[in-house]
């Protein structure tokens, strides 16, 4: 691309300028321009420094020089000297000029990137090409020469230069902010590419008139670091301050006024003959050493006829006698008056501005074309104007802005207004492209012409045009000027309507340029609201209402937002406009959500989605609001559903919303959907998903330069990391995100983000920090009535108290959280707070209360059971339930134990061991005197484990003990078991079967009679007998089949004999799944140990535990030992020996 600056001389051409002849090459232009400038005096040091910096840039050490000086001190002249030096180094055949020159203009201070656009348009000779297609072709070929003709780059260049993008090239779907950033990028790329091919002198003149966009570009460009082979020279007046910090390779060069000696030297170079010292002194005194003034005076001295006073030495003496003109203005006016026959041409030229095209001047002036050309030639000859090209395709520029200003200021007010009016009318009627491209120019001329109404109209156009390009500062400038004109009009409904037209875009622009919370925004929308109420255009009024609402929402002022939302809904209710109703319902839904009325939010959002959702309507309103309400309603509906206890439904809706946002294809809406989706996933404790959504959100925010969404994306990414336990990375990122978020000026949702921070601090053990974060969050929630996170904040505060071992403080906070959650109908927060409280109660041995409380909330859920909160709640319920079961189990063991009679002494002494298994088996032991002679002994073993088995077993034992088997002789084991078998069929007792051993001892006869149902033998150890006597039975397992027989057997027990009745838990011993003991081994052990005497049951228990390898047993260990004592009838001792 060869924007080689063939007009990079003083002949900068504004869009007002006419075409430039193609025949003139870059180098010729530069040389001819240099040949015309006045001699340089007293600037040797400055020139040498500039040349030195150029050499450094040539060697790859990029340089920046700030050339600072008052008007007329010769900044431009110095720059020309440097340009002459640079151009002089061009070699034969070199085409591309090494000089790139941007010029700022006082007339385009609010036209974004004007110096750059002006330069590129001139360099591309766009005015010569009448069709946009041809201009695009030229752009393409220039870019191609520099390998910069990529499709997306071409689209950006076309946009910058105001060209339509042809078919086949990618359309630009970037936000205004992003478009601006990309435009800056291609401009930087172009500069770097140029510098890569050869050293470049990059000049920006008159920076004190720079527009905000160009200044922003320069700030970025200069602060990005050293630029290889580029010498950047910026000229400006002392009152201007560069906004970027000084860098090492930057040099400031301040120009001073000329000394008396230097004035003499300049006059000597400029004047035809030598001047008397007295005149030199007078000139020095009068001009203050300003070179421009001196040059003008020198010209006057050289050509005194310009003052209509003749010429020669006499005139110079007259000058001494009568005095020099007192000001530059007087001097210039005098010169022009003296040299022209019709001053109108010079005056009109000065009214047009610093630069103008012949054809524009011709269109404006009343003089004939011949006169016009003569007068212009005179001005050029007198070096008031510089000319480029040949009329009618010529352009002109004042030698210095001071000259232009002097001529313009000298005009009488009436005349000046008349000229401005002529210019404005001509531009509007004959130069529609200019009117379209530069409405601010017409606005300026109409304003100066006193044609206020038309000026207002063009200021509004200019402001809106800048808004489209995200040139916010410039937009504010135009809109503010227009607004000032409007406010100066007499009060009337029309005036109010006009003011309202300015206020809406001005408020939006203030938000974009200075942040949501900027102090300028509020008054604008408040005023707009007053006006909207007066003038009553429904759509306009609603837009104001919404803007007003939006401003208060982002500031977190929800108390007021509630009123505004209600007012908006009432207003829209009187109209039949579904699109407005959709928006009004959103204001309601949004406000209710943030105030913690989740049911209200759900109702409004779901009504909007069900009855008013329409893609075309939401798309239309998105142009006013910035976001598509089809997506925004669904975002808040999903969040409301989560709070109300429908997490599955919420997630499903959130997924649909993301899909919808992708279909809409609107980056801001996509960010809106992603933001709220991450928020929901954060609530759902889906850390990975929250993080993934946040990453996409950040990517889009980075690409589109959405600072707000970038900040919240960072917050969710951090939140996702914290949920995954990554405190080290998550906490610093969260702090960084919060800082960015606050920097946008928003308070919206701060309590929520601070709750994430507080939670993170608690987990990290940083309790003081956690207190600070949660206290701030609660303060903001209270101040703004921003209640949606309030319950969770109190729960977290409770957790914090708990971590600090303040149980009472914790309980108070949990109870408050639950109370708030119930009031807000938020089952989600209620569940979480109740879990916290339940854990506390569990720790305080109040498990039953904890379980009841949690079960009550958990039981209200109808879906979402795979969500982490509900999974956690269920697990906690089970733990609490198990604890209750353990309590119940202990009570069961106590009960069973309580049912076993205590050991007894007497004719028969009885002792027993009952060790329940870890699951409580179905064993029970019993014995009682049926009458004075008969002692019943029994052991029941109900199959299966658990309370049901134990209770059945105890029940059977109690039946035996109470003798309540009707029609049964309890002294007859066969009858007893047969009756028992029929009384406890498994079909009526939970499919429980049981075994029983029932014996009756007659103390008078010593006869032991027994019967068994499915039970293994009991053992009798009889004195004098080594082998144990087995007492088997032949009855069927009990409860299985009715009407079974349980034949009894009898044996006369010797005095001192020991009877052992035991359950299968005594011998069915498994270890690691293998049988390590059985009944035979058990009998052998008992026989052996029984012969030794001693505590047989304890030894047996110890042995079984050893075999089992654990103190805890797999089955009940139940054993009863009856020792038949020596008595009168049977005097044998009972010692086992």
């Amino acid at each position: 691309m060869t924007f080689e600056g063939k007009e990079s001389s003083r002949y900068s051409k504004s869009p007002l300028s006419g075409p430039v002849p193609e025949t003139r090459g870059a180098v010729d232009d530069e040389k001819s321009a240099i040949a015309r400038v006045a001699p340089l005096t007293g600037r040797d040091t400055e020139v040498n420094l500039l040349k030195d910096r150029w050499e450094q840039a040539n060697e790859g050490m990029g340089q920046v020089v700030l050339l600072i000086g008052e008007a007329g001190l010769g900044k431009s002249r110095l720059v020309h000297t440097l340009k002459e030096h640079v151009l002089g180094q061009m070699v034969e055949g070199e085409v591309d000029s090494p000089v790139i020159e941007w010029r700022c203009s006082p007339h385009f201070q609010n036209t974004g990137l004007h110096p750059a656009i002006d330069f590129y348009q001139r360099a591309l000779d766009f005015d010569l090409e009448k069709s946009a297609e041809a201009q695009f072709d030229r752009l393409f070929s220039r870019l191609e020469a520099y390998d910069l003709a990529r499709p997306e780059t071409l689209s950006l260049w076309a946009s910058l230069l105001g060209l339509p993008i042809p078919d086949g090239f990618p359309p630009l779907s970037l936000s205004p902010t992003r478009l601006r950033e990309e435009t800056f990028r291609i401009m930087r790329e172009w500069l770097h590419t140029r510098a890569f091919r050869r050293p470049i002198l990059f000049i920006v003149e008159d920076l004190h008139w720079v527009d905000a966009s160009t200044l922003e570009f320069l700030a970025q460009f200069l602060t990005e670091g050293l630029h290889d082979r580029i010498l950047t020279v910026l000229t400006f007046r002392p009152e201007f301050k560069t906004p970027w910090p000084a860098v090492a390779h930057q040099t400031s060069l301040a120009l001073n006024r000329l000394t008396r000696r230097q004035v003499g030297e300049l006059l000597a170079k400029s004047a035809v003959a030598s001047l008397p010292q007295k005149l030199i002194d007078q000139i020095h005194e009068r001009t203050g050493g300003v070179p421009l003034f001196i040059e003008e005076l020198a010209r006057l001295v050289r050509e005194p006829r310009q003052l209509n006073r003749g010429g020669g030495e006499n005139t110079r003496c007259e000058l001494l006698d009568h005095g020099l003109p007192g000001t530059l203005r007087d001097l210039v006016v005098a010169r022009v008056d003296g040299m022209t026959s019709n001053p109108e041409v010079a005056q009109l030229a000065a009214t047009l501005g610093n630069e103008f095209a012949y054809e524009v001047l011709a269109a404006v002036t009343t003089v004939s074309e011949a006169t016009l050309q003569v007068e212009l030639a005179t001005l050029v000859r007198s070096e008031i104007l510089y000319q480029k090209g040949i009329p009618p395709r010529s352009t002109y520029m004042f030698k210095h802005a001071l000259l232009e200003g002097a001529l313009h200021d000298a005009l009488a007010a009436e005349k000046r207004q008349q000229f401005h009016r002529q210019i404005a009318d001509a531009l509007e009627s004959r130069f529609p492209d200019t009117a379209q491209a530069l409405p601010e120019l017409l606005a300026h001329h109409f304003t100066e012409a006193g044609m206020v109404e038309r000026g207002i109209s063009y200021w509004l156009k200019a402001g809106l045009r800048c808004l489209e390009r995200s040139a916010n500062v410039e937009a504010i400038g135009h809109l503010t000027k227009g607004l000032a004109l409007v406010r100066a009009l007499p009060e009337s409904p029309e005036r109010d309507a006009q003011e309202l037209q300015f206020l809406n875009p001005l408020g939006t622009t203030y938000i974009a340029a200075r942040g949501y919370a900027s102090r300028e925004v509020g008054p604008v929308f408040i005023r707009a609201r007053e006006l909207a109420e007066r003038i009553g255009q429904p759509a306009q009024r609603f837009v104001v209402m919404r803007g007003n609402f939006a401003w208060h929402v982002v500031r977190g002022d929800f108390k007021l937002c509630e009123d505004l939302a209600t007012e908006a809904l009432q207003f829209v209710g009187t109209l039949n406009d579904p699109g407005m109703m959709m928006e009004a319902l959103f204001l309601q839904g949004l406000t209710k959500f943030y105030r913690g009325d989740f049911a209200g939010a759900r109702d409004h959002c779901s009504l909007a989605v069900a009855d008013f959702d329409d893609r075309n309507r939401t798309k239309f309103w998105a142009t006013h609001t910035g976001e598509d309400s089809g997506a925004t309603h669904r975002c808040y509906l999903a969040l409301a559903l989560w709070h109300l206890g429908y997490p599955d439904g919420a997630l499903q809706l959130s997924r649909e919303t993301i899909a919808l946002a992708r279909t809409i294809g609107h980056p801001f809406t996509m960010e809106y959907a992603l933001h709220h989706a991450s928020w929901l996933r954060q609530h759902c404790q889906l850390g990975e998903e929250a993080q993934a959504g946040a990453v996409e959100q950040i990517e889009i925010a980075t690409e589109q330069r959405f600072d707000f969404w970038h900040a919240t994306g960072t917050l969710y990414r951090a939140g996702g990391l914290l949920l995954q336990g990554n405190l080290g990375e998550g906490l610093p990122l969260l702090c960084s995100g919060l800082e960015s978020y606050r920097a946008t000026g928003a308070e919206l949702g701060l309590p929520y983000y601070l709750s994430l921070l507080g939670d993170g601090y608690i987990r990290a053990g940083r309790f003081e920090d956690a207190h600070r974060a949660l206290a701030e969050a609660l303060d903001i929630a209270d101040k703004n009535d921003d209640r949606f996170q309030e319950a969770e904040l109190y729960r977290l505060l409770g957790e914090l108290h708990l971590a600090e071992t303040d149980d009472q403080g914790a309980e108070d906070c949990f109870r408050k959280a639950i109370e708030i959650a119930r009031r807000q109908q938020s089952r989600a927060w209620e569940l979480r707070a109740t879990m916290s409280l339940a854990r506390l109660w569990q720790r305080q041995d109040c498990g039953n209360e904890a379980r009841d409380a949690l079960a009550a909330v958990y039981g209200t859920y109808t879906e979402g059971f795979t969500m982490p909160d509900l999974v956690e709640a269920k697990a906690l319920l089970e733990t609490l339930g198990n604890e209750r079961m353990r309590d119940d189990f202990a009570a069961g063991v106590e009960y069973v134990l309580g049912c076993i009679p205590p050991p007894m002494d007497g004719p028969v002494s009885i002792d027993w061991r009952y060790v329940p298994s870890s699951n409580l088996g179905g064993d029970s032991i019993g014995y009682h005197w049926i009458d004075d002679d008969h002692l019943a002994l029994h052991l029941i073993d109900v199959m299966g484990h658990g309370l049901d088995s134990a209770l059945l077993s105890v029940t059977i034992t109690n039946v035996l003990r109470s003798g309540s088997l009707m029609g049964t002789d309890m002294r007859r084991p066969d009858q007893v078991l047969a009756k028992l078998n029929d009384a406890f069929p498994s079909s009526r007792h939970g499919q429980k079967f049981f075994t029983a051993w029932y014996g009756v001892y007659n103390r008078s006869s010593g006869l032991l009679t027994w019967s068994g149902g499915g039970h293994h033998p009991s053992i009798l150890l009889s004195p004098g007998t080594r082998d144990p006597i087995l007492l088997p039975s032949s009855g069927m397992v009990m409860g299985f089949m009715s009407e079974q027989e349980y034949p009894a057997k009898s044996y006369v027990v010797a005095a001192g004999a020991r009877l052992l009745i035991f359950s299968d838990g005594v011998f069915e011993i498994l270890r690691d799944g293998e049988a390590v003991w059985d009944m035979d081994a058990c009998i052998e052990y008992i026989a052996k140990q029984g012969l030794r005497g001693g505590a047989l049951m304890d030894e047996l228990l110890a042995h079984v535990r050893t075999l089992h390898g654990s103190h805890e047993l797999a089955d009940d260990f139940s054993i009863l030992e009856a020792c038949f004592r020596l008595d009168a009838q049977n005097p044998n001792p009972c010692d086992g020996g």
Partner: protein
Amino acid sequence: MDLRGNIGLGAASLTLRRTIHDLIDSGRTKIILNFSQVELMDSAGVGELISAYLPMKTKGGEIKFLNPTKNVHRVMQITQLDKVFKVYTDEQVAIQSFS
């Protein structure tokens, strides 16, 4: 159905119950349980066998035991299940007994 391992309280008896009931539910009315590789059966196992007895009987079917090990046989004797379930030592004989 070949059984293997110990049939005691817990997973084993549960598996035995489900398997038998699945067979019954699928219309199998002639089941032989091969106990040759069952070392131990406790009261829980006994309970499962008893539980299966009535549903099978209701459907006109029968469960028979094959080759119980010593321990299992002892349990059957004690609980008198050997009087309810027919016990075989030869698989072919057991099969043919259904015809």
